[in-house]
Structure formats: structure tokens, C-alpha cells
């Protein structure tokens, strides 16, 4: 770590990086209920609210169902409204998740990934956000606290353009509770980037009364869902445009996915979030030994960039997809997306599915190295479970 400008960098845990972005967004309403490991986000933001560093109406809800309901109400009223959650909290919100997307409310929700009960566990895996992948929310997976910070206001801009809610994921504890240097951009610049929020409809605009959430029967429901399908498609384009705009401020790229030493690789791992960092360290080591290995780290999971992923993976001999969640009785979610993406190719790379890290089980460099060793033998088979005692 060299020459970090102290004025620009703050030592932040991932949770506080999300809270810092929320402070700069300064939403009119935040309604939340604390749940480990999302707590640092909400504690920090509550502090900002108490210290009057934000103008936010901070609502301590009695459950996550209420927290998201209040956020939906505020958003429908025409203001920026946010919440944050993890695991069981997201599960309790489930009913309202599709209400937020169905009503086309651009709510941004930082999400700290944590395993679902039972058995109860507070550590990271992705089963919580994967269970919400089909509910019309944009889903962005972050590796570092820096990504968490930047993608939070990035997601706000994207959400408000396409009128879909967005969740921005970080790994429980690995990211949410570990300190990293985070480059913070001046408030003024971020406020200018996100701009003024002009809601398309507002429940509280008494000059233009509207009804939000009426009954829609078979004659129109399908058409309204198709609007949502189209909005998700539109989000692909707007994601890249938003990235170009933000790059002017940060100098960073905002691709659908990160490629790490992938272009000339023969064997690659696909893994998202903090585990991608572990994979990069192993790739550096194996590259020094002359092994042609690389990584594809998905960032945007919904909408899923099938075409672009296909282009990036088509020349590989063999790929391992590492999922931090399972689909009981089916293929793991990320594996299934990657496999589908490759389907149109005449000459498909070999694919191997791995499941790892459930309930916060660590993924060690040694284990990633073993995955690459297996891959370099060019053999695939049944799903493998990293570090599991069968």
C-alpha cells in the first residue's frame, strides 16, 4: 500500500463504507431493523442521523418486513428511501421485495450476505440474496469495501434511471467487518453525480392524485410484468452508461464482471465477492509457475450478462464455477447461469461446479490452488464441495 493520500482515504470496514455512501446520498427516509452482519451499516447511519450529518428521517422499524414496507411507502411518496439487511432479514422482507420492484420503486438496499437459518448462523454465504434473484431487483456483488462504497451510489443512479430497486451485496464479516483503505470522493462531487431525484409518480403530489398498487387482473398483469422485463433489459445498457459517467470521477471501470489474467488463460475460476480476492492471490502464484490460469468475477448478477460472459469464456479449455450457495435438488445458481451462457457455443469449454463456504466456512488459498490443479488435468465430474467433511 503506497502513498495513500490521508485526506482522501479513510480506514473503513465494508459496513461503514456502505454507510458513508448513504451519508452522501442523504436519502429522505431510511427505515431499518438491525441484523448481524448488516448492523455496522445501520449503526453508523443512525449516528449520522443523530449527529444531523444527514437530513434523513430515520425510522427504527419493528421488523424487516416493516422496514422495507416503510421504505416502499416513502419511495412511493416520491423521495429517496433506503434500507439495509442480511439473511433472515431479507427472508422476512421477501413479500415486499416483489412489491418494491413491481411498483417500480428505485430503492437501493445494501445487503450483507449471511447464511440462512436453520441451523442459525451469522456468517457469510450467498443463499440469502440468491433466494431473491428472481424478484425484479438489480443485484450487484462487491469484492471490496471500495466497491461497496462506489457501487452504492452507482446503484442509486442506475435504479432511478430504470425504475427498479437494487441490492448491493458485500460478504458478511469478510468485507462488512474488515478494515480497508477506502478512497472517499468529496460530497459535492457525489451529490452532483447522483443529481436531484425527480420521481416519475408521487403519492403525495396532491395536485396529481394517483393510486399506487391497485388490483390488476389477468387482462393487464402480464403487460405490467413485461414492463419490468424490459426495464431489466434496459438496466444492462444503463449500467454501462452509468459506469462511464462514474469513471470520469473515480477513474475506475465498472464492467459487468472483472477479468483477472483471463484473456490468455486456459483454465479459469468463476467466483464472486470477497473470495475473488483469494483466487487472485493464487492466480498470481500459479502464473509465476507458468500456469495459464485466470479469474472471472461476476459483479452484476441481475440482469445477468450472458452474452458478454460467453465472449469472455469461449476460448477457455476448462472452467470451475465456485458457488457460495446451493439450489437444493438443482444446479448451484452461478454455475447454472454460466452453463446457460455457454450453451450457444459450438465448442464449449469444460465446466465443473464447486460449492464452497456455506455458513462462513473459510476458503483457503491452498483449496483454490487444488481447484486449479484439478482443472489443469482437464477432467470434470459431479459437483464438488470444497472443505466439506462428507
Amino acid at each position: 500500500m503506497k502513498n495513500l493520500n490521508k485526506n482522501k482515504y479513510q480506514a473503513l470496514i465494508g459496513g461503514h463504507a456502505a454507510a458513508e455512501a448513504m451519508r452522501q446520498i442523504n436519502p429522505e427516509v431510511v427505515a431499518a431493523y438491525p441484523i448481524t452482519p448488516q448492523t455496522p451499516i445501520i449503526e453508523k447511519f443512525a449516528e449520522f442521523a443523530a449527529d444531523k450529518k444527514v437530513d434523513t428521517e430515520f425510522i427504527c422499524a419493528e421488523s424487516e418486513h416493516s422496514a422495507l414496507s416503510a421504505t416502499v411507502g416513502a419511495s412511493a411518496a416520491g423521495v429517496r428511501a433506503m434500507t439495509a439487511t442480511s439473511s433472515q432479514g431479507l427472508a422476512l422482507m421477501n413479500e415486499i421485495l416483489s412489491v418494491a420492484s413491481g411498483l417500480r420503486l428505485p430503492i437501493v438496499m445494501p445487503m450483507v450476505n449471511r447464511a440462512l437459518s436453520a441451523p442459525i448462523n451469522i456468517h457469510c454465504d450467498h443463499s440469502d440474496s440468491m433466494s431473491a434473484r428472481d424478484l425484479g431487483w438489480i443485484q450487484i456483488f462487491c469484492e471490496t469495501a471500495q466497491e461497496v462504497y462506489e457501487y452504492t451510489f452507482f446503484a442509486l443512479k442506475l435504479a432511478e434511471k430504470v425504475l427498479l430497486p437494487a441490492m448491493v451485496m458485500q460478504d458478511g464479516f469478510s468485507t462488512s467487518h474488515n478494515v480497508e483503505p477506502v478512497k472517499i470522493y468529496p460530497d459535492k462531487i457525489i451529490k452532483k453525480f447522483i443529481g436531484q431525484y425527480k420521481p416519475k409518480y408521487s403519492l403525495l403530489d396532491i395536485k396529481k392524485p394517483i393510486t399506487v398498487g391497485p388490483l390488476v387482473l389477468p387482462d393487464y398483469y402480464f403487460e405490467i410484468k413485461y414492463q419490468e422485463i424490459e426495464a431489466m433489459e434496459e438496466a444492462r445498457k444503463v449500467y454501462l452508461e452509468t459506469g462511464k459517467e462514474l469513471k470520469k470521477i473515480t477513474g475506475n471501470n465498472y464492467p459487468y464482471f472483472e477479468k483477472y489474467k483471463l484473456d490468455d488463460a486456459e483454465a479459469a475460476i468463476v467466483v464472486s465477492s470477497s473470495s475473488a480476492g483469494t483466487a487472485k492471490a493464487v492466480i498470481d502464484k500459479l502464473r509465476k509457475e507458468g500456469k495459464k490460469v485466470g479469474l472471472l468475477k461476476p459483479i452484476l448478477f441481475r440482469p445477468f450478462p450472458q452474452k458478454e460472459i460467453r465472449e469472455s469464456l469461449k476460448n477457455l479449455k476448462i472452467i470451475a464455477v465456485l458457488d457460495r450457495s446451493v439450489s437444493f435438488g438443482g444446479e448451484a445458481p452461478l454455475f447454472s447461469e454460466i452453463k446457460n451462457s455457454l450453451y450457444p457455443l459450438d465448442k464449449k469449454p469444460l465446466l465443473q461446479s464447486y460449492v464452497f463456504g456455506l455458513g462462513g466456512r473459510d476458503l483457503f488459498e491452498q483449496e483454490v490452488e487444488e481447484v486449479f490443479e484439478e482443472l489443469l488435468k482437464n477432467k470434470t465430474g459431479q459437483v464438488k464441495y470444497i472443505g466439506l467433511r462428507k
Partner: protein
Amino acid sequence: MLKSSSQIPLGGNIIKPGNSSEYKTGNWKTFSPVWDKDKCAQCLICPVNCPENCIPVKEGKRLETNFDFCKGCGICSQVCPFGAIHMKKCQTS
């Protein structure tokens, strides 16, 4: 004419107040009331019992049912003391 996806407000919002009369519910019915004017004594029991308020009354007399909103519940037929309304199965289109 039903509108297409791009012609309707986002998320099913209703952006014009007081427009429920544009939402015709008459096609929900399986049975349709047939009113026999000759048997009708104009007692006006049916209009006050119709839950859809779709039997118009003008100058103390009931008129033909408004089929755009009649849901075919059959209440009018049940309450008519003169047997002036019978329910007929709708043609399926």
C-alpha cells in the same frame, strides 16, 4: 380495446383520478339477467339490491341493465317478487 404494455402507466399505477368507470367489469359474468318488461311492476326492489348499482332508474322507473358493469350475480333475479328477471347463461366467445 385492451392496451399494450407500452401504453399503460408503469407498475399498474392509476394516474388519472376517478376513472374506475372506464374499467368495465361486465365481462366477468357467466349468467346475464334478462328483464321482462311486461312482467315488471316497477316496484324498484331490484335497483336497490344490485351490488353494482347498474340498474339505472329514471323518473321512478327502472331501465335496461347496464351490462358493462353487471357481474351476473343474480341478486336482482332472486329479489324480484314478480319473476320479471331470469338469468341466462352467457355465450362463451
